[in-house]
């Protein structure tokens, strides 16, 4: 016969509460670190651009974001279309099989009876 287990409820509640809070806390710390990382990296990327000579930087600075933006839009449109086709099953389903139609012989096309033997 199984002996009834004595449950230390205070410890169980402590593990439940503290454990969940620790998961939240640790991931909140990671949020701050990721935000910091994003800020540092973006500032590091911006800094060399500012240092470039104005005359050279001007045309590329105008052209680059525009082309990047249009490329991103194109990408998004392609992804959206692919997802739409996939989820709504809009595309044609090809059988991917080549069928060679067999000619059935009968009295109407048999060379024995016909004058023009088209099917050989």
């Amino acid at each position: 016969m199984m002996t009834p287990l004595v449950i230390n409820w205070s410890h169980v509640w402590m593990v439940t509460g503290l454990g969940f809070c620790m998961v939240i806390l640790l991931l909140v710390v990671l949020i701050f670190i990721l935000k910091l990382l994003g800020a540092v990296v973006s500032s590091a990327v911006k800094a060399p651009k500012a240092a470039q000579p104005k005359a050279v930087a001007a045309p590329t600075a105008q052209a680059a974001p525009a082309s990047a933006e249009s490329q991103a839009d194109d990408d998004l449109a392609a992804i959206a279309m692919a997802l739409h086709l996939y989820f709504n099953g809009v595309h044609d389903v090809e059988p991917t099989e080549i069928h060679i139609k067999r000619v059935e012989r009968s009295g109407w096309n048999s060379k024995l009876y016909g004058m023009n033997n088209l099917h050989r």
Partner: protein
Amino acid sequence: MGDILEFFEQMGFMNMTYQQGIMLLLSFFLLYLAIKKQYEPLLLLPIAFGMLLTNLPGAGMYHSELWTAFLDANSPAYHSYGTIMREGGLLDILYIGVKAGVYPCLIFMGVGAMTDFGPLIANPKSLLLGAAAQLGIFLTFLAANSMGFTEAQAGSIGIIGGADGPTSIFLTSKLAPELLGPIAIAAYSYMALVPVIQPPIMRALTTKKERAIKMSQLRPVSKTEKIIFPIAITTIVALILPDAAPLIGCLMLGNLAKECGVVDRLSKTMQNELMNIVVIFLGLTVGATATASSFLDWSTIKIMVMGVVAFGCGTAGGILLAKLMNVFSKEKINPLIGSAGVSAVPMAARVSQQVGQEENPSNFLLMHAMGPNVAGVIGSAVAAGILLTMLG
């Protein structure tokens, strides 16, 4: 005549118990689900076949009594891998990788090499959703205690709510190895059933208007950020929570190999060959632990029931926190992405996308949901580390 009789006596048929018969039938059913229904076949097939092999009487491929002695402090075989190598069968020897916590970590390496953390880096708040979805783990821990399981067993059952197979196996092999079979099968079965379990909960907890919320596009993430991310996460998590270091460390090593771009061969090996080999070993050996004596028990049914509860609570936790964040945040987020906070990459994110599109066909939540989804992988590994620290 005596030889013939002896041959008949040694046949598996003559030595089979009815419990082993039931387990064989169960393994056939799981093989059917894997092959015909394609429920997580990459894992379910080796698990089911391991279950088949271990329940063949007389085959001697897996010896649960050796592993009981391995854990018994009074036994001469206590923590003796030498005894296992000397006296064990093929599956006993392969099981050493589970027991030592090697396979789950190697799988995490492959998962890391296949995962793009870009959506998470672009929207760090996703980590909160990944954390909230771990609610299921801790509520189930509480429930399992009240149902008569020990604290270590309850922790292992709770981790099913993380919807992360390798993490469940890693933690259970450390805390409650006697429950490894049922817990692994529950974890992988429910992961395959994510598209069935989650949508009703998602619809029940959100309004039509909330489900139709469109989110703004994520910012582009630079390569530098993607390279620094795994190094920073490993360092910080391992310093705060050393018990989570094996899982997080391997996950991030795989990711670093992918993102740095200088070790393509290693990255491809992690994603393909290594991952596939380990999946075979892990599946077979986890299935092998499902012997008739350990599996056909009331506790298995309780574990299965609590697994669903854990999954449901995790899903609800993520959604409810997303709704709460909407109260305080100017930029609205679609609460459906909260449900992706349970790991199950990428199926949970796909479910968010599908349910969102039911309300608004032009709404594409997939990339937004990938943030909480990969955050869930980190969250469940962290929760496993916390449970290991507190209960180990």
